[in-house]
């Protein structure tokens, strides 16, 4: 790794000031995506601003209608949280299936969302649940947050502080994992609300996306049968040694039906 300065602010204002005053400074959360990139020298930064010591950035609270998770919450904390288990158990299961135990002991919700890796798990839940992403400057709806491959609506120096999730009537997540990395080759999250069903797919395209025709069918009838045989167009989907676009398109259908089954079994 190239040398860098390192800062460990204890509140958000300090963190924001450091980011504003240091050219080419980057935020570091759990470091599970950033450090591998720095080690390979695919990126370099003059300074890192570590959010790990900021009070209150890690806590998880839940009312009946809303679950609120701090951006600094580790995946293992979300997986083990009684608040998450009580309100959105599918989200706890998703967090418990990220990577491996060591990745879950360091990686954070905010880091995953800011990174917007096309194969990350959380984006599917955040988009399907219609969550709000709160930063030190504003609140963004999931529908406008994810912009493309490793691209989000975040501005330079903007810090994700918290994510709030509306509590659904039922939800489920299913992923077809890469056996080597455990990232999603395709993952689908379904969430059923009184107003209708939302479906989001990760891993399939350059960025997480909603599957509207499945949403309509599942809003009519929340059963696997309602989306039997449905897939998505393979055009523009990811293709690599693990799976070509047409296979990923097929997997979106299979994972969606498994996610519905999981939601019905919960």
């Amino acid at each position, binding site marked *: *790794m*190239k*040398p*860098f*300065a*390192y800062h*460990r602010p204890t509140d958000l204002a300090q963190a924001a000031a450091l980011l504003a005053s240091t050219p080419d400074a980057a935020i*570091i959360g759990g*470091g*599970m995506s950033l*450090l*591998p990139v*720095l*080690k*390979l020298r695919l990126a370099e930064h003059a300074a*890192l601003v*570590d959010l*790990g010591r900021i009070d209150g950035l890690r806590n998880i609270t839940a009312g009946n209608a809303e679950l609120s998770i701090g951006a600094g919450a580790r995946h*293992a904390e979300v997986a083990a949280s009684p608040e998450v288990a009580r309100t959105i158990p599918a989200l706890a299961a998703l967090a418990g299936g990220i*990577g*491996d*135990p*060591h*990745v879950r*002991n*360091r990686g954070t919700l905010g880091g995953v969302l800011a990174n917007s890796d096309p194969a990350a798990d959380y984006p599917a839940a955040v988009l399907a649940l219609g969550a709000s992403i709160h930063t030190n400057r504003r609140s963004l709806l999931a529908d406008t947050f994810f912009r493309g491959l490793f691209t989000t609506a975040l501005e330079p120096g903007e810090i994700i502080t918290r994510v709030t999730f509306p509590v659904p009537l039922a939800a489920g997540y299913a992923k077809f994992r890469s056996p*080597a*990395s*455990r990232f999603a080759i395709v993952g689908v999250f379904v969430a059923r609300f009184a107003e209708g069903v939302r479906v989001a797919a990760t891993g399939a395209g350059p960025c997480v996306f909603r599957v509207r025709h499945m949403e309509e069918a599942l809003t009519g009838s929340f059963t696997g049968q309602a989306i039997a045989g449905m897939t998505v167009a393979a055009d523009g989907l990811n293709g690599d040694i693990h799976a070509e676009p047409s296979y990923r398109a097929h997997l979106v259908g299979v994972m969606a039906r498994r996610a519905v089954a999981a939601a019905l079994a919960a």
Partner: protein
Amino acid sequence: MDVALEVNGAAVRHDIRENTLLVDLLRETLGLTGTHVGCDTSQCGACVVHVDGRAIKSCTVLAVALDGSSVTTIEGLAATAGGDALHPMQTAFHEKHGLQCGFCTPGMIMSAVDLVRQNPAPTEREVRAGLEGNLCRCTGYQNIVAAVIEGARVMRERQGV
């Protein structure tokens, strides 16, 4: 930048470069070479140590980020179980033939101990899931899984090690 840690029960204070990884502090500065580097890309788990009791990959954490934390490496593990020459999980790996070349073993054992502390009686399936972040190129995993189940049994008998 100054960093103060407790490593295997001893207070350690060093002025290090900000970009020092925990594994490099352990191996290069402190001479604790039991923690291995297998991949350097956060995949293999040869570098796993405990930080404040939880297993993490020491090749993917900045030492300065852990200021004030307590670190346990394979060298300090036996002492956490009352100071025998070997921790029960180490004995189980020995007895069940849970290693061949031994390169992955320190990380396997550190991961296994955290796994058993969270889940004192893991099933075979749970052991395999708990070791997903640890790769072994020799054993085919069968004996590693058997060793973890045996180590868990002894840890239960001796409660809380």
